[in-house]
C-alpha cells in the first residue's frame, strides 16, 4: 500500500440516504394500493402487475446490455415505473399489451432520453397514454366480474348518483390502483413521514382543482360532487405518486407550487370541458412539459440577496 492517503474535496461524510432507498420507500408506500387492487380485482390484477414490472426491469436490463452501459436496474426505479404503470391499467387489459406499455415506458420515455433523471415525462404516464391511443377499447373497458363497467366519474358525467363510501374505500370499477382513495392516502402518509415527498405539489394541485370545480363545474358548492371528483379517477394516485415524481417536477420550491396550480387547472379543464371523464394523466404529462419553463421563472433569490433595482449602465 502506498504511504499517501486518499485526498478528496470536502465534505468528507455523506448521509445514509441513497436513490435506491428512496425508490424502495416509494414501492413500500404503493403496497396498500397494490394490495387493495389485487383484493378488489382478483388474480387478473396480480398477473398484470407482475407482468408489467417484469417487462420494465427486463427492458432496462436488455437496453443497457445492447448499448454497453453499466446496468442500473439495482436502483429500483424501473420497479417503481412498472408498478405505477400497472396501477394505471384496467384489470382486464390483455397481458401482452401491458408488456408493450412497460417496454414503451422504459425504452422510449426513459432510456432514449438518457436514462434515470433525464426523461422529461413521467414514464408510467407516457406509457399509459401510448396504450390509450394504441388500444383505446381495451384501455377503457372496465367491466369485470362484479362491476358493470362504468367508472364513478363516467357515472357522474351521465348524471347518475354514486356511493361516496364505496369510492373512498375503492369498491368501484376503474384502473387497478386508482379506485381506493384511502389506500392511496395511507401510502401518501408513508411518503410524507419518510420524507420522500412534501405537500407542496399535491396540496396546491388539490386545492386548485377544488377551486376550479367551484368556479366552473356548474355544480356550485356541492360537497358530495367535490368529494366524488377528488376520490374518483386517478386524482389521488396522480397527486401523491405521479405529480410528485422528482425527475419530472420542478426542483425550485416556488416552481413546485406553480406546477401544482397548473395541474389543478389542466385537470379541471379536461374533466369538465374535455371529451373524457378522466384527465389526470394528460394534465400531469402536459405539466411535465412546462417544467423547464416553470423552473426558469422561479429561480429562488439566494439568502441575503435583495431584489436589485434596475441598474443604469
Amino acid at each position, binding site marked *: 500500500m502506498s*504511504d499517501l492517503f486518499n*485526498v478528496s474535496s*470536502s465534505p468528507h461524510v*455523506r*448521509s445514509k440516504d441513497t436513490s435506491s432507498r428512496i425508490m424502495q420507500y416509494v414501492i413500500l408506500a404503493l403496497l396498500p394500493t397494490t394490495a387493495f387492487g389485487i383484493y378488489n380485482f382478483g388474480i387478473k390484477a396480480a398477473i398484470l402487475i407482475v407482468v408489467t414490472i417484469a417487462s420494465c426491469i427486463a427492458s432496462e436490463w436488455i437496453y443497457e446490455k445492447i448499448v454497453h452501459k453499466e446496468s442500473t436496474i439495482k436502483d429500483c426505479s424501473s420497479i417503481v415505473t412498472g408498478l405505477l404503470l400497472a396501477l394505471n391499467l384496467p384489470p382486464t387489459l390483455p397481458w401482452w399489451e401491458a408488456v408493450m406499455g412497460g417496454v414503451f415506458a422504459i425504452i422510449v420515455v426513459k432510456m432514449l432520453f438518457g436514462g434515470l433523471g433525464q426523461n422529461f415525462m413521467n414514464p408510467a404516464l407516457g406509457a399509459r397514454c401510448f396504450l390509450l391511443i394504441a388500444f383505446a377499447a381495451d384501455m377503457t373497458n372496465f367491466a369485470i366480474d362484479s362491476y358493470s363497467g362504468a367508472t364513478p366519474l363516467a357515472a357522474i358525467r351521465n348524471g347518475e348518483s354514486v356511493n361516496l363510501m364505496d369510492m373512498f374505500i375503492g369498491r368501484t370499477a376503474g384502473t387497478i390502483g386508482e379506485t381506493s382513495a384511502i389506500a392511496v392516502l395511507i401510502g401518501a402518509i408513508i411518503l410524507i413521514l419518510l420524507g420522500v415527498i412534501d405537500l407542496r405539489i399535491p396540496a396546491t394541485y388539490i386545492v386548485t382543482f377544488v377551486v376550479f370545480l367551484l368556479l366552473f363545474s356548474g355544480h356550485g358548492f356541492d360537497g358530495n360532487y367535490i368529494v366524488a371528483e377528488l376520490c374518483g379517477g386517478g386524482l389521488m394516485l396522480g397527486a401523491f405518486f405521479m405529480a410528485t415524481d*422528482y425527475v419530472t*417536477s420542478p*426542483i425550485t420550491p416556488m416552481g413546485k407550487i406553480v406546477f401544482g396550480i397548473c395541474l389543478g387547472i389542466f385537470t379541471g379543464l379536461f374533466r369538465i370541458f374535455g371529451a373524457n371523464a378522466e384527465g389526470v394523466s394528460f394534465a400531469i404529462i402536459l405539466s411535465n412539459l412546462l417544467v423547464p419553463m416553470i423552473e426558469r421563472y422561479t429561480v429562488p433569490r439566494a439568502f441575503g440577496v435583495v431584489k436589485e433595482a434596475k441598474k443604469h449602465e
Partner: protein
Amino acid sequence: MTFKGGVHPYDGKDLSKDKPVSELLPKGELVFPLSQHIGAPATPIVAVGDTVLRGQKIAEAGGFVSSPIYASVSGTVKAIEPRRVAVGDMVNSIIIESDGEMKEAEFVKTDDVTKLSNEEIIGKIKEAGVVGMGGAGFPTHVKLSPKEPDKIEYIIANCAECEPYLTSDYRRMIEQPEKLVAGMRIVLQLFPKAKGVFGVEDNKPDCIAKLKDLVKDEPRMEVAELMTKYPQGGERQLIYAVTKRSINSKMLPADAGCIVDNVETLVAIYNAVALGQPLMNRIFTVTGNAVAEPQNFYICIGTNYQEMLDAAGGFKGDCKKMIAGGPMMGFALFGLNIPATKTSSALLCFTEDEVEAYKETACINCGRCVEACPELLIPSRLADFSKNGLMDVFEKWHGLECVECGSCSFACPAKRPLAQAVKTMKKQALAAKRKK
C-alpha cells in the same frame, strides 16, 4: 433560533468531548508558515542560526491586512524554506528547532484593561498576531476596525461548533469560560453601543449553563441557544439566527451591524490585551474512529501533526482517511508531515472513506440539496452549470452566494460531489471577475 436549510450529520463529539485538555510539549522542529491568515504573508525578521525565545516575534505583518507570527517554543532557527501545509500548498516557513526549555520572552500585563484606549486595544491585538481561529484566519484587528464603528450593534461569539467531531471550543467553554467572557468584555469596550451574544448550539447545555451563570451580572451580554444544525456556525447563518438580519456574499457582517468572533479568537484577544501574550497556542482535537485515544490538546502552534497523532496513541485499526479540520469543511490530507497553524482545529482519522465507499449515481432531481442549502440555492443545477462551463447562468442562479458548507453533497442520495462542482465554478467566476 436558527436558519433555513442545513443538515444533521452524525456528530461524533462523544469520542473526545469528555477528555480534559492536556498540554502537549513539542519535541524537535516546529514549522511556522508565513501565511497563516488571509492577506499578505508575514516577513521573517529572524535569520538562520538565531536563537529565539518563546513569545518572540519571528515575522512581521506584511501589510495592514496581515498578521505577525511568534515563536511558540524557545530554540534555534534552523531554516527558512517552503514547507507543505494542511491545504496541500507549499508555503514559505520559518523552521525552529526547539531546545525543550520553553524559555519565555517577557510579557507585559495590563492590570486595568478599561483604562486602555480603543487604539491601544486594537494595537495590542494586531501586535499579538490574533486572527480568526475558527478556520478563515481573517486578521482580527481588521475586523475590529469597521468603517462605521457606531453602527455595530452585536458582537457575536461563535460558540456553535457545528462541525461534527470537533470539541476544542467545547472544552474551552467548559474549562475556561471566564477567559471567553473576558475577551468579549474587551471587544464590547471598543463598541459601546453593541451587545455581546454568545451563540451556542443546544447540544451543549453544560456550556450554555456555565455561560449564562457568568453573564448574569453582565448587562451587555447574553447567551443565545441555537438549534443544533449544521452549518449553524457559518457566519451568515449565525448572524441570521441571532439577529434575523441576512447578509450576502458582497456584504460584511458589519453591514448588518455585527462582528462575529470565534471562541478561541476571543480568548486570544483576552491573552493579547490583558496578559500581553502573543498568539502561540490553541486547543486542538485529535479524534475519529481510527485514533487510539481521542484527545484535546493544548498545543504550540507549529507542532507537527504526526506528533499530535502519536500523543493520542497513534492509529487504531486501518486508517483510510485523514482530515485537517471538521468532516464537512476540512481538508483531506495525504500525509501528516504538516504543522498546526493558528487556524488548525482538529485532526480526524477515519477507518472508512465515505466518499469512496459510495458510488455516484444519476441525479433524480429529488431536491434534497435544495432543502439542505442554507443559502437557498439549487445546488444540483449549479453543479450541472459548472460541469458544462455555463458561467453566466451559474451567476444568474446565484452560484456566487455559495458558502461552501458542503450540506448539498452530504444530503445528495445520488452521492454527487455537488459542493466540489459549485466551488470549482465559483473559483473560476471570481477569477474572471478579478481579471476584468
